[in-house]
Structure formats: structure tokens, C-alpha cells
């Protein structure tokens, strides 16, 4: 699983940081999402999927990891 975000949509709800803090942070300037790690470890996929699901503005997109990234 690979994370992509659309920061222009983000309203800084912080839900993603709350449920998957290893992968998401928020900018100190405007609270907008920052991705800490794009490639998601298998064990963390449920938490990251939850972050994407509960994002109130659908700013988190989940794709398939490139083979090189494992």
C-alpha cells in the first residue's frame, strides 16, 4: 500500500495523525497534512486505511506500492 495525499483539500482535522501517527503529520504553518512515510508496512495497512476512510475531505488516496518499494 502506498499513500498519496491532496494537501489542497486538507482542512487539518488531524484524524490521520490521530489514527496513524507513524505515517502522517500536520504542518506547523497551516495544519495541512504531511506524509512521513509513503510506503505502508503490511501490519499498518488497517490503520492507514482507516485514516483514509475517516478523512473528512477525502484528501488521502491509497494505491499499490511499486514492486521496488516492496
Amino acid at each position: 500500500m502506498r499513500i498519496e495525499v491532496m494537501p489542497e483539500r486538507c482542512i487539518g482535522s488531524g484524524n490521520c495523525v490521530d489514527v496513524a501517527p507513524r505515517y502522517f503529520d500536520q504542518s506547523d504553518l497551516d495544519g495541512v497534512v504531511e506524509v512521513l512515510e509513503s510506503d505502508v508496512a503490511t501490519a499498518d495497512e488497517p490503520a492507514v486505511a482507516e485514516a483514509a476512510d475517516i478523512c473528512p475531505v477525502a484528501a488521502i488516496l491509497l494505491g499499490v506500492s511499486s514492486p521496488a518499494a516492496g
Partner: protein
Amino acid sequence: MTSSDTSPAWPFERDNPLDPPPIFAERRGTCPISKVSTWNGDQAWLLTRYRDIRTVLTAPGISSDLTLEGFPEPSATVAAARGGQKNFARMDPPVHDEHRRMLAPDFTVHHVAELRDYMSDLVDDLLDGMAKQGGPVDLIEMLAQPVPSSVICRILDLPTERSDFFQDRVRTWMSLDNPPEVAQAANRDILDYFSAVVRERTARPGDDLISRMITGHVNTGKLTAAELLHMLQLLLVGGFDTTANMIALGTLTLLQHPDQLARLKADPGLSNSAVEELLRYLSVAHQVAFRLAQGDIDLGSQCIHAGEGVIAPIAAANRDPEVFAEPDTLDITRDARRHVAFGFGLHQCLGQPLARLELQVVFSKIFVRFPGLRLAVDADELLFRNSIIYGIAELPVTW
């Protein structure tokens, strides 16, 4: 489409004070997207399913701007109260996003977490105060209100001795039982108060949120002083009654579900998941999520057309059995994190990390400190408040 004479009128009565009006479940089972009347005879769509409510609240062109023709309102008093609001909760993009992002850095998860020790000490002190006074006490006066009001006063650097003034004006503004002009007057008092604060901090800025908004955004021309006043009003009304009522009603709900309370007492580590479940179960923001469609929204079986009003009650979404098994059962161990108690879409509560932390601190401590906490009156004697945020007038408890 139902004709205006036969469609039921918003707001709907509750049968049980801790459950949403039964019409949500009835409609969800028979006609999940249907028309209802509002106070002035207008028609609006009532949504009852989690998925429809999320779809509408995230639809492009769904508007929160109540100055638009046809915007639905729950009552004359709410229309008047909200009519006095000129903040980003009542704005659409792009201005909404610009304004919200000015405040967002102060409400990020990490920034809010810095307040954890302060909140922990605050709650300990308040619980000490209860113990010192001895039961019975009013939990609202001794704990539920002081927690959020102290936190907001700290963030905005306002004198806590003015808490009573803020509480009174916020409650008057929120109440649905007051005439419209009384709600408007309370709002004017809040704006006048902030006006004086802004004048003083423009002259002598400090390190608080208000001063930083002045130096970073008003002085640089990105925000007008009037816009700042309305933003501060939103922080005050958003931060006071919401969390206070969650503390009071959450405590009451646990007391009325002894099996769930026993689980929490046995494992205080369940307090975070208990908070999410209480947020879901209670959905205290029961009069929000009124919107106007500015473009067509396809909900599958029904299309919402441009120009039509929509009511998307979070309490209906949060009791949808398609998403939450046995939704009317309180289960503090369930994963309730998908609830929409803070709303959904771009207007979802800005202060939710703050509210969450306040509630987590309270519910991790209150039953540890007072394992024998119980109601000091008969539950039938409790008076529930008819307000924009659902609440209770007094909660007498003892231990």
C-alpha cells in the same frame, strides 16, 4: 415528493433522552431520503443513512452559507443566532479554507497534545474540589463546564474569572427556548467583549492565539478585525457547551449502563475507546449539518437538486446499523472511530483533537477517583436542555 401539509416538521421529539428521535430509524428503514418541513414552512431533504450523510457533506457545491436564498434553518431562534455569525463555519471555499488554515496550527494533534499535562492537573484539581465539598454536587458546575472553559480561556489567554460571563452568554446564544432577539443580544455581548480584547492586544500583543492572529493575519491584511471577532466567537461557542455536555451526558450514560461502566473501571485503558463510543452514541451536536445544495447530488435512489435544502443529522448517521452493529447498544469496546460526531466534510470540527483530549483525560480519571459515583437524584428528575448542542441543566451526583 411529499406535499408540505403531510411532511413531518423538524425538529423531532425524542422518546428517550439519550437516544435520537425515533423518526431517524423509522425513515432509514422505509424511506431513507425524504422531505420534511422546517419552522418557516420550507421543505428540506432529511437524510438518515451514514453513507448519504457523508456523501452530501463532502459533495462539491454543498453550501454552509446561510445568507443564500433557500438555506434551511431549524428554527427562528437558530436562524437569528446563526445570522449573527460571520465566520468560516458559515463560509464556503476558498475563503473558508484560508480562514480555517490560519487557526489550524493551534489545533493540530501535536500542538493540542502539549496541553495534556495542563489538562491532567486541571481535572485532578477539579476532582479534588468535588471531594473537598462532598457530595452531592452538580457535576456540570464542578467539572463539566470548568474543564472546557478553563482550556479555552488558557488558549485565548482570557481571565478565568470571566468564565461565568462566557458561559452565560454562550448558553443564552445556544438555547432554542429564547426569543431570537435574546440570542442576538448575547452574541453582541460576546463580540463586544472580544472587540475590547482585540483592541488591547493590538496595542500590546502577547504570545497567545489572539495576539498571533492579530500580528500574523490582521496586520498583514489577510483578515479583517471584524472577521477575527467572529472567528473568536466561533472558538468560544464551539469550545464551551460541546465538551461540557459530552462530559455531563457521557458520565450520565455510563452511570445508566452499569455493565459498560464496570468494564471501564476494570480497565481504565478503555477510556479512549469509551470516549469515541460516547461521542457516537450521544451525538450532542444534534441541530447542526443543515446545508444548501448548489449543484445536483446523486444519491443513487434519489437526486438532491441545486437549490434544495438538506438536513444531515449526525445522530442519524451514528446510529446506522449498516456501519455500527446494534447501533442503539452502548459498547465501549467497539471501534466507533468512524462516527461523525464532529461532523464530516470540510466543516468537520476544528477543535476535535482538543475535545478528544479533554474527554480522554476526564474519563480516564473520574471513575478512578470516585469509583462509587452515582446520581444523587432520580434519573426521571433530570432536565434535558433544548439547545443547539444537546445537554442537561444539572447533574447532581454523589459517591
